[in-house]
Structure formats: C-alpha cells, structure tokens
C-alpha cells in the first residue's frame, strides 16, 4: 500500500484503505430498496407539499413553498429532462421492477396523509456556550437540545488537549502538560444543565506518545506461547512503561521479566 507523508487526511494518506473501506461499506445496497425508498421519498415530499398548499389556501398565508415562479417552473422542467437523461437503463429497470412489485408508482396529488417525522432543521439554533477556564486552557461547551458537544478547545502554551470521552451527555477533555494532567469532565444533569468538574494530577506513565523521558530500548524476551509481530521497542520512564510498537497477535500474552502485554492496548511493567 502506498503511504504518503502525514497529511492527516485519510483519503490522501491511505488511499487504498479508504477506497477498500468505502467499497466494502457501500456495496450491495439492494436495488429494490433504493427504488422503494425513492418512491417513499416522492410520496412523502408530495404529501408535505400538499399539506403546505392546503394550509396556504385555507389560511390565506403568503410565502408558502409551493408557489412556483417562472424561473422555478423552468428549473423543474429542466430537472425532468436532466433526470431522465441521467437515469441509467439499470435504474429504469429498477423502476419497472418496483412498479411490478408494488402494483404501481405513486400518483402525485392523490396520496394519503403522512405524519411528519422529527427532522433536524437545516440550521440549528444552539444555546450560549459554556466556557470552562483552567490553568491549562479553555474548553467551550454547548448544549443543543439534549446533545452536549465541544465547541472549541484552546490549550495554553505547553499544553496539548485531547477529547477522551465524547457522548451526547458526557464529555471529557484531557489537557497534558509536561508535569501535570488536567481533566475537564462535563455532564448533563437531570435538569438539563451542563455540570463541569476540573481535576488535576501529576503526569506519570502517560500512554501514547506523551510523557516519556529517558527512553531506552529493551529487547523483549518472548516466551514460547507468545507471538509478537515485529520488534518491540519500549520507552521506560521510572516505573512506567509506554508502548510504542508492540503488537500481539494473540489476546493477553505474558512475557518474561514481569512484563504483560494486554492485547494491543499497551504494556504494563509489573
């Protein structure tokens, strides 16, 4: 596989994996489901359009979405031509198959009423952000409906920030300094308010690439029951070990010298 420089863009850096993932995940969507969905969409849109039209006529409202100007009528006409020309033979066959299966396509303007499901608006109104100010930087949070989200993170110089938990109701942001960790936890309480907690601790034995000093390379003794892929390089600082490249093909693997490998999660010095 071609590997490019670290661009932070998966499409550029791992093009073959990206293509394979996309092809694998998007393959085999049933053509009948596509046709059925198109029919459902058309019926629903027509019903929604009729609802607006009826409301406009009954209430004398202005600004309804069904009013067509000359320009939009022209566009609609062009759309039908464009759409017809872009439909492949396969899709046309799907339409015919769908018609055969379902007993006919929708007839616009003669549709049963359809209850409108909840749809997020195209533009979402959000609440005023909550800003958590710490010695390590600031975290801006907001609550949109019932969903808690991070708006912005601004670590101060010498600090880096990572979002370690991000769910609709709980967020954790970890600030990593050279000698200190600051954790900002935010939850949504029962009253629907954002509640934040800031805790700090000393940075020892940080996983990943952070907080490793005085690293030395160790050759790891591999027991007969283990199967490590590649060479193991372990950076050690005091009593803490940081995994930078040990992978286990088995599940939990015990190594000689009091080191345990837990899957691919890292190493722990016993």
């Amino acid at each position, binding site marked *: 596989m071609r590997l490019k420089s670290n661009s932070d863009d998966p499409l550029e850096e791992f093009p073959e994996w990206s293509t394979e993932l996309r092809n694998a*995940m998007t393959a085999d969507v049933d053509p009948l489901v596509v046709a059925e969905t198109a029919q459902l969409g058309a019926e629903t849109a027509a019903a929604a359009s009729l609802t607006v039209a009826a409301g406009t006529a009954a209430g004398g409202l202005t600004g309804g979405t069904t009013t067509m100007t000359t320009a939009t009528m022209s566009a609609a006409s062009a759309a039908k031509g464009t759409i017809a020309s872009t439909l492949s033979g396969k899709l046309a066959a799907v339409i015919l198959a769908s018609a055969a299966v379902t007993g006919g396509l929708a007839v616009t303007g003669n549709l049963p009423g359809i209850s409108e499901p909840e749809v997020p608006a195209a533009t979402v109104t959000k609440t005023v952000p909550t800003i958590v100010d710490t010695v390590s930087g600031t975290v801006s949070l907001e609550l949109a409906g019932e969903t808690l989200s991070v708006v912005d993170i601004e670590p101060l110089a010498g600090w880096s920030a990572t979002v370690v938990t991000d769910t609709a109701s709980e967020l954790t942001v970890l600030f990593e300094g050279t000698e200190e960790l600051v954790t900002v936890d935010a939850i949504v309480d029962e009253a629907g308010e954002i509640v934040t907690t800031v805790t700090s601790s000393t940075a020892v034995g940080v996983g990943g690439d952070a907080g490793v000093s005085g690293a030395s390379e160790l050759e790891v003794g591999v027991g007969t029951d283990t199967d490590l892929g590649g060479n193991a390089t372990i950076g050690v600082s005091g009593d803490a070990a940081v995994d930078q490249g040990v992978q286990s093909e088995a599940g939990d693997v015990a190594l000689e010298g009091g080191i345990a490998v837990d899957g691919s999660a890292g190493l722990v010095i016993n």
Partner: protein
Amino acid sequence: MAQEFEALIVGARDGDERAWLVLVSELAPQITGYARSKGVADAEDLMQDVMVAVASGLGRFEGGWSDFRSWVFSIAYRRIADAHRAAYRRPAEAPLDARLSSTAPGPESLVITRTMADATLSALEVLNDTERDVIVLRVIAELDTDEVAAVIGKKPGTVRVIQSRAMKKLRKELRQWAA
C-alpha cells in the same frame, strides 16, 4: 452543476419519483455505508428513515449540493445516535466485532462479516465514537472537514483536531494492514 442540483431539488419537492431515484441512488450507498460502519444492525432501514425525513423537511431546505449533503448526513448522524441509545437500553450489547459476526446473520450482516475478514473495518476499532464519525464521514461519505463539522455540530477546527488524533491512531493500524 448548481443549476442541475436546483432542478433536482425542485423536482424532488414536487414529488417527482425520478428525481428521488437520482437522489437516493446517489446517497443511499453512502448513508447505508456510514450506518454499517457505525454498527447499525439494519442499515438499509435506517437509510430509508433518513430519506423519508429528508422528504418531509425538503420544503425548508435552502442551499447547494454541499449544504444538502451536510444536512442529509446530519439527519443520519442523529438517527444513528438514536439507534445506539436504543441499543444501550438493551442489556449487555455485544461489541461491534461480535455484532458483525453474529451467528444468525441477515443478508446485510453477511456482507459486513465478509468485509470484516480483511481487517479493513476493524482498523476503526481503535477510534472512539467521534473519531470514527469523522473518519467514516470523510472516507465513506466523502465529505470535507467543513461538511463533517456541519454534520456533527462542531467547529471545522475542532474536526481537524479530532481527525489529526484519529489519524495518529490509525497510522499504527493501517501500516500493519498494509504490511
């Protein structure tokens, strides 16, 4: 392109089934793929829900193709979150691997089980939920970072930070995948 899209949307608003066939044919694989990659059991069913929601709200939509895709995937994002919340209410949900290789698979999970075998999808297991959303929306839905930001309700800069962190994790996995 902009005129074609406008014409397509006008047709879709009017209930033109051919317009809907174009829209669904374009978006259904990506929405279904997004849902599959997030472990949704019935991804095609979720895709249908999303497109019906789009149909209901299309009268209120304003914007171009990029805005439209962001809007559609924001609906998908919320529907997937709802599906996960519903799943969490059920006891002892199995991890993604187990769900995908269920012993009683439907046709769709059979497809996914096959793809799991080559570890393409399993590389995503190292990512947390938000990181996976960003990467999957970039790769499968082919959205740019600004569009992803609109979908998941974060600033573009925050999305780039999340993507950078996710890529750092993925590099280890994908270099092994490539080996």
